């Protein structure tokens, strides 16, 4: 959230000072010379912040690469238990939302308030859709462990409800028995080497799901932050703060949204599309 602070319109007016800048609109902060300079600075600042975001996810990708390289068979088999169609739908949802955000910036530039609000609204809806689908995927995984009705039991490691599968890393983690059919797939004869259920700790399978939950979870956290930002943008756009000369918040908030999209563009093939 940090970097959006300077871009949202100032609530407290800049402290009184002597130097004269009569041309200041209310949106131009006192220490900038011009709106153009302010916009470029905000964009650059956001990009520098995005660098840190990319490196943040970079750490997870690094771990992912190491373990995928180490356990290729495990990866191939573990990925079969993710819901690829839903992942694909989510990817499309995010790509569309990227388009709507880009169109929102375009609308702001052109001063079309109505289209700006529409686009931001669609973005909000798409973001929410993404989170709902993601939540459903998560609940699917959790339901197998202790039953969605009883998350406490999962946390305490109590009941396992006689399931033969629990893909949430933790004490109850069980990777299900592979189906013979999968082993028959050409070129993957070794996949059913792990035919025994791999119970609990020590199984490389749970590394996959650990990374899956951490990566997509962190991504979901960013989605929530992104949705918050877009909500604020919608609000200020509704208030009429955004003008063709001052649309920096939309531009900068949009950059953040696109970053979330980019991260997912990598997460999708890395987790859902593994053979």
């Amino acid at each position: 959230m940090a970097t959006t602070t300077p871009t949202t319109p100032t609530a407290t007016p800049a402290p009184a000072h002597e130097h004269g800048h009569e041309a200041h609109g209310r949106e131009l902060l006192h220490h900038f010379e011009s709106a153009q300079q302010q916009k470029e600075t905000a964009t650059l600042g956001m990009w520098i912040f995005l660098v840190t975001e990319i490196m943040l996810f970079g750490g997870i990708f690094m771990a992912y690469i190491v373990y995928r390289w180490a356990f290729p068979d495990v990866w191939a088999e573990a990925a079969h238990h993710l819901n690829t169609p839903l992942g694909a739908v989510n990817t499309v949802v995010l790509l569309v939302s990227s388009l709507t955000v880009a169109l929102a910036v375009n609308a702001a530039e052109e001063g079309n308030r109505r289209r700006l609000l529409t686009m931001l609204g669609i973005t909000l809806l798409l973001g929410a859709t993404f989170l709902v689908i993601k939540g459903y995927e998560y609940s699917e995984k959790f339901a197998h462990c202790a039953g969605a009705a009883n998350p406490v039991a999962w946390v305490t490691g109590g009941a396992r409800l006689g399931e033969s599968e629990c893909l949430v890393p933790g004490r109850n983690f069980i990777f299900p028995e592979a189906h013979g059919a999968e082993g028959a797939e050409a070129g993957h004869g070794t996949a059913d080497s792990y035919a025994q259920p791999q119970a609990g700790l020590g199984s490389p399978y749970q590394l996959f799901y650990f990374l899956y939950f951490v990566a997509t979870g962190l991504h979901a956290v960013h989605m929530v932050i992104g949705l918050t930002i877009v909500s604020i943008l919608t609000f200020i756009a509704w208030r009429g703060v955004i003008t063709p000369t001052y649309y920096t918040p939309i531009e900068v908030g949009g950059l953040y949204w696109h970053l979330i999209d980019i991260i997912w563009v990598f997460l999708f093939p890395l987790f859902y599309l593994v053979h």
Partner: protein
Amino acid sequence: MAKTSTSAGHGAHGDGAHSEHAAHAHISRGTYYRVFAALMVLMALTVGAWWIEGIVALPRLLGVAIAMAIAIAKTTLIVLYFMHVKVSERATQLYAAAAFIGFAIMVIITMGDYFARGWPPPPGPLP
């Protein structure tokens, strides 16, 4: 850092004279739609490639390479057009690139160690 020679001695604040921004290219809505169409095509390609890999035995590395190449292509489109880096100033472009270069350095060097080290290690048999 290559940006050092830019903007010497002009009378304005910071990098880039304000006048340069008269040339600030504006990405049209049509471009956005075309980029989006390309993204959708790439999306179909990556899922399609995965589907084909499920039927035809391809080397595993090739599958990863295809998926990553498509993801990078998508990212490039989003960064250049949706995120306006194509029409941004030099410093922004440099930082956009720096992120990916920094990540590449980390991956290349670390994986270099793993390739040379003798891995994977077995899971420990310890209590």
